[in-house]
C-alpha cells in the first residue's frame, strides 16, 4: 500500500517539477486554507496573515482570514466551528488560549482538516505543526550579543519588558541572563528589569525612571515592540540621544524615524510576513499529504526553501533579523 502511494506520487512530483512554477512540490490545487489570528486588526497578525495569503495565492489555493475582534479565551471557538462546517482543508491559527481551542481543533482534525499553529501555540494534540518565529534561546542570546556590540562590551543596562507575567518576554529574559554568564560579558551588568505593561505611556514613564535611578545606565533593551518605541521616543528628546543605546525587538516601520535620527543604532525582529508565509506552506503540504507533522519530515516552502519538522512538530522560521540604517528601508512592516 505504502509503495503504491509512492508510485502514485511519482508522476505528480514529476509534473510539479516539470511545470517549473513557484509552486511547492506536489501541492494540491484549490486548497481552502483559513487563517485565524488572535484578533483581527492586530497589526502584527495582519502582516503575518498577509504573508500567508500571499503564499496561498502562489500555490493556487483559496485563502481567507477570519477571526474575533476580542482576544478572549473562547472567542476563536465559534470561528473554528464555522470553518469545520465550511469544510476548509486547513486552519492556520494563532491561539488566544493554549487549551480552550484544543477540543474544537481536535474535532476539526477528526474531520480531516489539517491544523497548523503559528505565533502562539496550543497544546500539541490540538495541531499537527507549530510554526515558531525563532526559538526563545536564540532570541534571548541574540539580544545580548547585539547589546554587547552596541555598548562596546561593558556597562550597565536595564531591560524594559512587557507585563511581569508575559511568557514570551520572561523566557527571553531568562536566556539573556544565561548568555550574560559567559566570560566575554563579565563587564556587562543587568541592573533592573522594569515593566511597561506593553502600554506606551507606562513604558515611557518607566524609561524616564530608569534613567533617573541609574545615572550610569548605558543601555535599555526592550524585548517588546511597545517598549522599544516608547524608550526610543523618550531618548530622542533627551540630551543623551546618540550616546545612550536603545535596542530590543521592534518593527521597522515603528523604528524607522528613530534609526534615521540617530536615536537607535540597531534592533531585531523576525519578519512576521515570512512567519505567515511559512505557516501557509506548512498547512498546504499537510493538506496535500506530503507531510504528517512527524519529526524529520521536510517540505518546500516557496521562497523560504526547504524546511524540516523539528521536535514535537515545531518548524522554526529562523534567527531574528537585525535592522539598522543600512537595511531598514528594505522592510515594510
Amino acid at each position: 500500500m505504502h509503495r503504491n502511494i509512492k508510485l502514485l506520487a511519482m508522476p505528480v512530483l514529476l509534473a510539479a517539477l516539470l511545470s517549473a512554477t513557484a509552486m511547492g512540490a506536489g501541492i494540491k490545487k484549490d486548497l481552502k486554507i483559513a487563517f485565524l489570528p488572535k484578533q483581527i486588526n492586530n497589526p502584527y497578525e495582519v502582516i503575518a496573515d498577509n504573508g500567508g495569503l500571499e503564499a496561498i495565492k502562489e500555490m493556487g489555493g483559496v485563502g481567507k482570514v477570519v477571526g474575533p475582534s476580542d482576544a478572549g479565551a473562547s472567542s476563536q471557538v465559534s470561528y473554528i466551528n464555522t470553518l469545520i462546517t465550511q469544510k476548509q482543508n486547513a486552519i492556520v491559527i494563532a491561539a488566544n488560549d493554549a487549551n480552550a481551542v484544543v477540543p474544537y481543533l481536535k474535532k476539526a482534525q477528526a474531520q480531516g482538516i489539517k491544523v497548523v499553529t503559528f505565533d502562539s501555540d496550543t497544546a500539541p494534540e490540538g495541531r499537527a505543526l507549530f510554526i515558531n518565529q525563532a526559538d526563545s534561546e536564540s532570541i534571548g542570546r541574540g539580544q545580548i550579543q547585539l547589546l554587547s556590540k552596541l555598548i562596546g562590551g561593558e556597562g550597565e543596562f536595564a531591560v524594559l519588558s512587557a507585563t511581569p507575567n508575559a511568557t514570551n518576554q520572561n523566557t527571553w529574559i531568562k536566556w539573556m541572563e544565561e548568555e550574560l554568564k559567559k566570560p566575554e560579558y563579565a563587564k556587562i551588568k543587568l541592573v533592573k528589569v522594569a515593566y511597561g505593561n506593553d502600554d506606551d505611556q507606562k513604558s515611557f514613564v518607566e524609561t524616564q525612571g530608569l534613567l533617573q535611578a541609574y545615572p550610569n545606565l548605558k543601555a535599555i533593551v526592550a524585548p517588546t515592540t511597545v517598549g522599544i518605541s516608547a524608550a526610543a521616543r523618550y531618548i530622542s528628546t533627551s540630551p543623551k540621544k546618540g550616546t545612550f543605546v536603545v535596542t530590543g525587538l521592534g518593527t521597522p516601520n515603528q523604528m524607522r524615524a528613530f534609526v534615521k535620527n540617530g536615536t537607535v543604532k540597531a534592533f531585531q525582529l523576525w519578519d512576521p510576513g515570512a512567519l505567515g508565509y511559512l505557516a501557509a506552506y506548512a498547512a498546504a503540504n499537510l493538506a496535500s499529504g506530503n507531510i504528517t507533522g512527524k519529526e524529520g519530515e521536510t517540505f518546500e516552502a516557496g521562497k523560504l526553501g526547504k524546511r524540516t519538522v523539528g521536535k514535537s512538530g515545531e518548524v522554526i522560521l529562523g534567527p531574528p533579523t537585525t535592522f539598522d540604517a543600512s537595511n531598514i528601508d528594505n522592510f515594510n512592516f
Partner: protein
Amino acid sequence: MATTQKLNLRFSWEAMLCVVLVMSLGLGRGLSAEFLGTANVSNLLADFTEIALMALPMTLIIVAAEIDLSVASVMGMSSALMGVLWHMGLSMPLVVVLVLAAGILAGLFNGLVIVRLGLPSLAITIGTLAMFRGFSYLLLGDQAIADFPASWTTFGISTVGDSFLPQPFILVIIAAVGFTVLLQSTAFGRSLYAIGSNQTAAHFSGIDVARTKIKLFVMSGFMSALAGIIYTLRFSSARGDNGEGFELSVVAAVLFGGVSIFGGKGSLVGVLLSLLIIGVLKNALTLYDVSSEVLTIVTGLLLLSSVLVPNMAERLRAARIKRVMAAKAVAAR
C-alpha cells in the same frame, strides 16, 4: 385600559420578534446550505449558553427597574475560583458547590449594598464589575488552569446522544422554564412588575421591596457562577479574563427582548426569542464570512432598534393624545 394597552404593545413586540426569528432562520438557510445541519445548530446553541444563563435573572432584575452589570465579572471570578480550588486538590463536586456558594455571596453583597445604602444598582454594580474582575485576576493572575478532569470537560462539549442539543444547554432549558414560571405565574413575579412600575406604590401595597431586590441579586450571582462553571468546562480553561464584556451582551439580549430599561414591562418569552435571534444571526453571518466588526455593528443596531422602536411608538401616541387634548381645550373655550 392602561393594562390592555401595555399587553397589546408587549404582544406585538413578541410577535415581531417571532417574525424576525423566522426571517433570520431564512437568511441563515439562504446564506449557507450547512446552516441547518446538526453540527451547526449545535454550535449555534452552545455559543450563547452563558449569555442565556445570565440573561434570565437579568430579565427579572430589569423588570424590577434595577440592573446588574457585575454578572460577567462574577462569571470570571467563578471561573478563576474554580481553577484555584481544583488546584488545591478539592474534588470536582465540592469545587462546584463552593463556586456556586461564592456566586451567591457575590450577589448577596450587591443586593445588600444596593438595598441597605439605597444606592442605584447601576452605580454599585459598575463598582463591583471592577471589583469582582479584580478578584479574579488576584486569584489567577495571567495564568490559565486547564487540567480539569476529562469526565467533566466532556460534558461541556458533548451533545445529548447524537442529537443537536449540547449537554450544557439542558441547564439553559431547565433554568428558562424555572424563571419563566417564576416571573410570569407567581406572586413574586407580579411583585417585580409592581416594583418596576412604581416602587413606592409597591411598598405601600405590602411588598417587601428590599427583600425582593436582595433575592434578585442573589439569583443573579448564582446564575453567573453557574455560567462561569459551564464556560470553564466548555473551554477547559479557567482564566481571570473569562467572560470579559459579556455583561453588555446580556443586557442587550434582555432589552432587545422587549424588556423596558425603565422597568415594569417585558416578558421572558421575548428575551428567549431575542437570544435565539442574536444567536442565529451571529452564526449565519459568521458562516457567510462576515467580519466580526460588522457583527458587532449588527448587534448594536438590534439593540438600538429595541430601544427606539417602542419609544417612537410611545411618542407618536403621546403626541396624538396631546393634539386631541389641545383640540378639546380649544373647543371648550
